[in-house]
């Protein structure tokens, strides 16, 4: 190596990196300026950490959260991993929140246990941690904002599919990620209900597959389900990404109308499929309300109005007053059924 190339290479690389870093550093990513070191003085800073980005369900909940943040005078930003199937994927973001000393972290957990250590470090740094949509172990976090009871959701799903397949036949479940707390809670409830309820004695659950909340994977898994179980009568997909992909596959296949599909879906994604007859009815709640409530709850924690104990009450803007239940759970409400009659009334 001759002298010129070494020195010049070092200088060139130095200049390149510095210029890149400067460009990135001055490029405000749009939402808000960096928080002051250590919480306290100034706006309350919150971070929203959904299971993954690019998921319309979480986009809606973040919009609701932003509305609430405006109301309480807090700043909120959304971060998250690209895919939701890796329990460890959320950890770097939680670490960053701890480093930045934000006031509140609102997270939908990909796994009940894996992120607990990271959350512990964040709480040590003074961050209030509230889970929503999908919980961690109760002692890891300060509060859990639950959209509906697991029993309620499971019962509603089975009710819908049973109606649509005429009370008997083979069904399968297309879930999201294998470790997701909420998915597993609902699936467990559904299996228990199928065992115990005499109305469902003729319905058999033949398979549970995982689409990891990724569109292509859910699409391919639906194809595999139909191929491997020729006698399948119904599919339950309690994930908005899964049901959208499954509906799209079904609407172009010869099983349309023969294999019934229900689950949890957003009205905007499902509208074309309800209109063309692929899907009859499905359920959900309003994710925007969920995010809205989560922010109000976090603000109440930060202000010291509540500590997360059972019996605490707090105000959540337009949604009214909420009370904290056992294990630090705050319940939003009940799931709502969408079908051809009412689907045009909603826009999310």
């Amino acid at each position, binding site marked *: *190596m*001759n*002298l*010129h*190339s*070494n*020195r*010049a*290479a*070092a200088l*060139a*690389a*130095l200049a*390149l*990196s*510095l210029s*890149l*870093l400067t460009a*990135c*550093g001055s*490029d405000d*990513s749009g*939402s808000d300026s*960096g*928080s002051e*070191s250590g919480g306290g003085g100034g706006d309350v800073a919150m971070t929203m950490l959904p299971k993954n980005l690019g998921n319309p369900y979480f986009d809606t909940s973040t919009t609701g959260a932003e509305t609430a943040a405006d109301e309480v005078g807090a700043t909120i*930003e959304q*971060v998250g991993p*690209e895919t939701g*199937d*890796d*329990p*460890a994927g959320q*950890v*770097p973001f939680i*670490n*960053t929140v*701890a*480093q*930045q*000393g934000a006031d509140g972290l609102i997270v939908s957990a990909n*796994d*009940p*246990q*894996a992120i*607990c*250590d990271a959350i512990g*470090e964040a709480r040590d*740094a003074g961050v209030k941690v509230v889970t929503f949509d999908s919980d961690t172990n109760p002692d890891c976090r300060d509060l859990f904002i639950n959209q509906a009871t697991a029993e309620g959701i499971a019962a509603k799903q089975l009710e819908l599919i049973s109606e649509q397949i005429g009370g008997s036949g083979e069904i399968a479940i297309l879930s999201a*990620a*294998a*470790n997701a707390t909420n998915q597993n809670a609902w699936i467990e409830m559904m299996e228990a209900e199928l065992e115990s309820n005499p109305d469902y004695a003729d319905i058999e659950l033949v398979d549970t597959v*995982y689409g*990891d909340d990724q569109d292509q994977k859910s699409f391919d898994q639906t194809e595999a389900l139909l191929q491997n179980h020729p006698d399948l009568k119904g599919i339950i997909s309690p994930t908005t990404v899964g049901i959208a992909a499954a509906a799209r596959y079904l609407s172009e296949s010869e099983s349309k109308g023969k294999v019934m599909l229900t689950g949890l879906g957003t009205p905007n994604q499902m509208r074309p499929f309800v209109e063309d007859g692929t899907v009859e009815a499905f359920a959900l709640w309003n994710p925007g309300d969920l995010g809205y409530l989560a922010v109000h709850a976090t603000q109440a924690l930060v202000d010291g109005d509540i500590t997360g104990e059972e019996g605490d009450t707090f105000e959540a803007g337009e949604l009214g007053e909420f009370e904290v239940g056992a294990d630090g759970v705050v319940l939003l409400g009940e799931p709502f059924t969408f079908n051809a009659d009412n689907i045009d009334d909603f826009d999310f």
Partner: protein
Amino acid sequence: MTTPRTYSEFSRPLWMRLLLTRETAVIALTAAVVVYSLATVPNFDGPLTLKFLLQDIAPILLIALPMTLIIITGEIDLSVASIVGLSSVMLGVLHDNGLSVPVAALIALLVGAACGALNGFLVAYVGLPSLAVTIGTLALFRGIAVGLLGTKAVTEFTESWTDLATATLGSTNIPVVMVPFVVLALGFSLLLHFSTFGRGIYDIGLNDEAAHFTGVDVARTKWILFVLSGVVSAFAGIYYTLRFGSARGDNATGMELQVIAAVLLGGVSIFGGRGRLHGVIAGVVLIGVIASALRLERVTVNVTNIIIGLLLIASVISTPLLSWVATRLPRKAPPSEEPTPPKQATPAGV
């Protein structure tokens, strides 16, 4: 006749030879980036930054050590991330079935060694190209890992072990995992620079046939390096699993590219025969610091990827590019010699 010029008269002074190397360039760059980040990036000077940074790059630091040696011999090992995943799954599955963490970890290390032995056997003794073999074992080991656990993850581990993985030394912010790393780094440095085995590694990289003829056991050396790579990758997998508290078949997917990027950035030549460990360590730290700083600046991960890609390409084309530029520059004429006397006419008939 002039006295012949000796090497010491032509070569550069010692300080130049020591400091003006590729590795120094990387170390200087890393230092500059750290200083710049401390000054401008909010919260970078906070207490947790060093801890998270080192915890994040620890697996890459560990695997980069044997990877450097393998690349110096002119081979490559793309299956390291899959071995990380497989050892993670072994740890999870065995622990789930009742074995304690240390015992499960030991078995995971043995599995890693076996994987490395397979790689080494196919490359060194059967003579297959390492690129193709390790692409195959990348798929095979990852496939076994995913096959064993499906898409589930084992996340219940004895707390004392997961705490150990995220603990720091005393009151400093240096994670405990740095201790085994420093030990391994010293070990590999001694191996590479102070043993005949290490000299053999460089020889193989420059020309493995010639190395063979000078008595280096090429096949055994390569085999040993692949086994080391397997063991260290398995160890990184154990650390990764305990740190995140999650054993999963897809853990560390894509990590091999990060390791190779860091190694090449650190001045190791992909053609083999050249490179040193301190440059590689600086390379890993550089990538880690850039990623950490950008995350704190709320810049998304993709920009980090673009920067790593650009750095990687810049580091490998800089040498040929600058050589080309240097050939175009006017050169100082070498100092003139006394003209040698013209050749005597040879007597006829010779």
